């Protein structure tokens, strides 16, 4: 059908098709899930290449483990959980060459043509301060916040990934935010 638009199925639908043997569904699931996985991995690893490798490895493992998948928070949190393991193994293997330089993480949303120069400067300074403060958080708190902020997961999904109760995750995130506020005040 030419000249038409069709919404791509969601990740869970794609995964069901992929599990049923559709190579194309795996390919489309990669397209759909990659931004979230990449953002998480890039924040936790030192280079773009390491992050891309982590996403590729995540999919190889997902393909291998698809038959063992059990429905829970959804396939995206499941993939993020696999990606988290890949990242942690990279840490153990020494694959994280250095702590991620926060200044390289200025996102696509960092430049905003609709803001005036003064507003952009203030927003840029604030973003720099936030990145500096985030980098001072203990590693497990950085990971907790990354799962929510960058991977876009709610407390239930994060809890399923790290093996804690949702309430405990919310409390831990609150503690991380409180610490972040403290660092921001010190930095001001």
């Amino acid at each position, binding site marked *: *059908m030419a000249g038409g638009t*069709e919404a791509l199925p*969601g990740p869970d639908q794609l995964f069901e098709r992929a599990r049923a043997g559709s190579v194309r569904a795996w390919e489309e699931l990669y397209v759909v899930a*990659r931004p979230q996985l990449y953002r998480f991995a890039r924040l936790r690893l030192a280079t773009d290449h390491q992050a891309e490798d982590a996403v590729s490895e995540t999919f190889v493992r997902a393909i291998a483990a698809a038959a063992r998948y059990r429905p829970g928070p959804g396939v995206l949190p499941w993939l993020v959980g696999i990606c988290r393991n890949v990242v942690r193994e990279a840490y153990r293997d020494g694959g994280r060459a250095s702590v991620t330089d926060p200044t390289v*993480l200025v*996102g696509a949303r960092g430049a905003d043509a609709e803001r005036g120069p003064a507003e952009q400067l203030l927003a840029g300074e*604030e973003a*720099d301060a936030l990145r500096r403060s985030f980098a001072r958080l203990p590693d497990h708190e950085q990971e907790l916040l990354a799962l929510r*902020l960058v991977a876009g997961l709610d407390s239930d999904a994060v809890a399923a990934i790290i093996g804690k109760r949702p309430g405990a995750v919310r409390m831990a995130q609150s503690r991380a*935010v409180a610490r972040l506020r403290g660092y921001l005040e010190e930095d001001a």
Partner: protein
Amino acid sequence: MNDDELFERLGHALDPVVPPLDAGRVAAVRAAAAAGPVGSPVEPLRSRRSMLRLGAAAAAGIAVGGTGGVLLSNERSDAPALEAVAVRSASGVSASAGLIAHTWGLEVVLDITGLPAGTAYEMTFVTTDGRRVAAGGFIGTGGRMICRNNGAVLRSDVARVVVAGPDGAEAVAADLA
């Protein structure tokens, strides 16, 4: 600043730029899927690493042989190739796209975030000889949208893909090789 505002601003500050899809890595996923699960008791880790190396090699544009060649030749018939394409987005819009060349036309898989809710957008293919071919439309949701658009023109004849709003301003554009 309350916690929600702080979360939003921190998320904004930390959001890494996601590079355009890499055709080599897409091909590696396709090859891994075509090969089927490799989590069997026989050399599971080695198999996985082979897949990852395949992806890295393909991403770097390096010719792959051995295991990679076998995997790539073992593709299933339901898997048309997804060609990664670099896209440019307007301020506030984030997008990635892949192309599927069919015998009947071109299909675009578009993953886009940031189109204002309620605003209608049209996708157009610009051919190598300057014709504009409609490829469907969609309405912004304010959130993430994943759409599949089709146009009645062959991949080899398409020079440019454009998504434009009602005022003609381009939200997304991609120049095809």
